[in-house]
């Protein structure tokens, strides 16, 4: 596919002006891949619902201006507003810059380094990962060496003011065999100016290790984000992940889980709340390469106003992956005629002995539950509000990282209060 009109000459010159901190070769390779393959377009099956034109436009303006414009003054405040409310060992990445690293000796069970300390070949199989690598200043590498009690928070704080801003964040996390960690990935914005944030996260989970992972996206409703999360669990590894898309203008998340070891047990759920002007696209893919292994996902969405959400859940059970148990579900509440959901489960099964189930629903609230609440004296609007909150709250409550639950709940409540106003209730009454 041809690149969607990304100004490649400007891109090359910006990349070549970046200081060589050991990553120049990586950037050149990525640039070459990008030059060859370009960015995806709507005619790519994986991208048919999400037009990258807005991020190409922001990128070209940013490239033309020749560098990054940041409003640093409010950053500290915006960062502290988050790190002070959720108890975790925080790593802050501001506009893609990882800043000063905490000294390793202070962090029990966590080894912290920069990608440039030991440049490794980055994952370059996807166009946006190439863009990420080409423009990457540096990346963060965490190695979890044992069982870490306190949650590990990674805050991606992206700030924009009057000039277009593009940021690239790259994170690698390795969890040693037998290790355990609670991860919080928090995507946030400071300011409403045009911004495109692109991030890549790779997590390798060792044999018998346990990872709980909460992803919180609470960006400005004007901001554009693409993110790719690739996870490889080891033998008998356990992953409990939940994603919360609570803000954002144009959001595309790709989550890929590669089950190449027997005994792995993964679940990855998601909640997305969307209102006027928002576009939230969640693409998930799980590859069952060997069995037995278990994967399950449940995504839920609440949509109101003129917005569009996408859930595309792909599960591939490869030949020989006997003993696979794969479940996927997607449920949506549509509160407006103008809200659109594209829900697509994709199951490809090439093995013999497998258990697979999928289900999607798009609709309104359960009449029986509504009558039940009304028969207890709650008026119809109150009952509808309660049920809508419950639809979301159920996933909040199931968050695998308990330390983040209150923080997530607060944002969900605030966002729902904006989304479920009188007119939305009126739509549900119809």
């Amino acid at each position, binding site marked *: 596919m041809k690149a969607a009109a990304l100004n490649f000459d400007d891109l090359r010159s910006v990349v070549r002006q970046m200081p060589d901190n050991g990553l120049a070769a990586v950037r050149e390779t990525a640039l070459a891949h990008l030059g060859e393959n370009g960015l995806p377009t709507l005619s790519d099956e994986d991208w048919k619902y999400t037009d990258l034109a807005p991020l190409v436009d922001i990128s070209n303006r940013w490239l033309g201006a020749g560098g990054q414009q940041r409003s640093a003054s409010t950053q500290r405040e915006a960062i502290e507003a988050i790190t002070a409310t959720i108890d975790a060992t925080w790593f802050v990445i501001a506009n893609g810059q990882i800043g000063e690293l905490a000294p390793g000796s202070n962090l029990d069970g966590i080894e912290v380094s920069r990608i440039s300390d030991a440049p490794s070949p980055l994952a370059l199989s996807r166009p946006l990962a190439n863009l990420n690598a080409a423009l990457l200043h540096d990346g963060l590498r965490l190695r979890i060496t044992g069982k870490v009690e306190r949650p590990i928070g990674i805050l991606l704080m992206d700030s924009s003011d009057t000039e277009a801003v593009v940021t690239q964040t790259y994170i690698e996390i390795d969890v040693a065999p037998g290790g355990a960690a609670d991860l919080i990935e928090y995507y946030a914005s400071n300011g409403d100016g045009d911004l495109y944030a692109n991030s890549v996260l790779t997590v390798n989970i060792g044999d018998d290790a346990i990872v709980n992972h909460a992803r919180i996206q609470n960006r400005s409703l004007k901001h554009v984000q693409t993110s790719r999360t690739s996870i490889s669990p080891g033998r008998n590894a356990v992953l409990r992940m939940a994603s919360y898309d609570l803000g954002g203008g144009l959001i595309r998340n790709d989550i890929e889980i590669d089950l190449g070891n027997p005994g792995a047990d993964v679940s990855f759920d998601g909640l997305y709340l969307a209102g006027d002007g928002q576009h939230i696209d969640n693409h998930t893919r799980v590859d069952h390469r060997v069995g037995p292994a278990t994967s399950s996902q449940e995504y839920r969405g609440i949509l109101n106003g003129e917005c569009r959400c996408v859930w595309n859940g792909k599960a591939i059970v490869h030949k020989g992956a006997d003993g696979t148990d794969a479940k996927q579900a997607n449920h949506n509440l549509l509160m407006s005629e103008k809200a659109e959901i594209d829900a697509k489960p994709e199951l490809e099964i090439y093995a013999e002995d497998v258990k697979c189930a999928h289900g999607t629903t798009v609709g309104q609230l359960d009449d029986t539950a509504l009558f*039940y*609440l009304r028969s*207890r*004296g709650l008026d119809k609007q109150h009952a509808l509000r309660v049920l809508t909150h*419950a639809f979301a*709250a159920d996933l909040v*409550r199931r968050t695998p990282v308990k330390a983040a639950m209150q923080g997530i709940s607060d944002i969900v409540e605030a966002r729902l209060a904006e989304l479920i106003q009188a007119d939305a209730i009126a739509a549900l009454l119809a």
Partner: protein
Amino acid sequence: MLEINDLHSRIGDAEILRGLSLSVNKGEVHAIMGPNGSGKSTLAQVVAGHEDYEVTGGSVTYKGVDLLELAPEQRAREGIFLGFQYPVEIPGVNNAYLLKAAVNAKRKHQGLEEIDAFEFLKLAREKMAMLGMDPKFLNRGVNEGFSGGEKKRNEILQMAMLEPGLAILDETDSGLDIDALKAVAAGVNALRSPDRAIILVTHYQRLLDYVEPDYVHVLSEGRIVRSGDKSLALELEERGYDWVREAAIA
């Protein structure tokens, strides 16, 4: 207190109630019995205001108020309580939240102040102790993952908190083991009062060993075909419903 006169109701194309009349006075306990499909649950749902059931004729008044003109929540606030045959699981809605919202909706209707948190907890714990319920059920999702017996106890808890004027308990005894049945019966008996009426909708006589009714009615094909005192229930237990049906036709 409750006057049902020549009530006709349908769901979709099926006519379920076909001229049902029933009069219930303060202080009385009525049992409505009948075979499956006779319209027992429909009667309960229609009185509570379920919108899937269309009332095509007749009247229902409660303390002189035309119930059919009221939304389900208005009926609840007037004092009608329906104990569901299949209590609904609502994950994400905390049991305490629902109880409190229900109590406050009624209090507001009565022109009273909202119940304060301390008073609410005290009252809820007291009622739960009576029903043999662990107070931790307050913090669970409404009926979420409850056993059959726990769900029915939870219905009785809601009833006990709301202190309705008229309680209609739809098959509250179904699926209960003997301990749960006794606990539920104790909850119902505790609520018996000269100011309150109770309608027990049941398929079996079993519950009536523990909650003694003043009247027993047999429903068949959408109408009451026989009424009597508690001995009628025992007779039904012995002779089955065919006997009533045949008697009704004859």
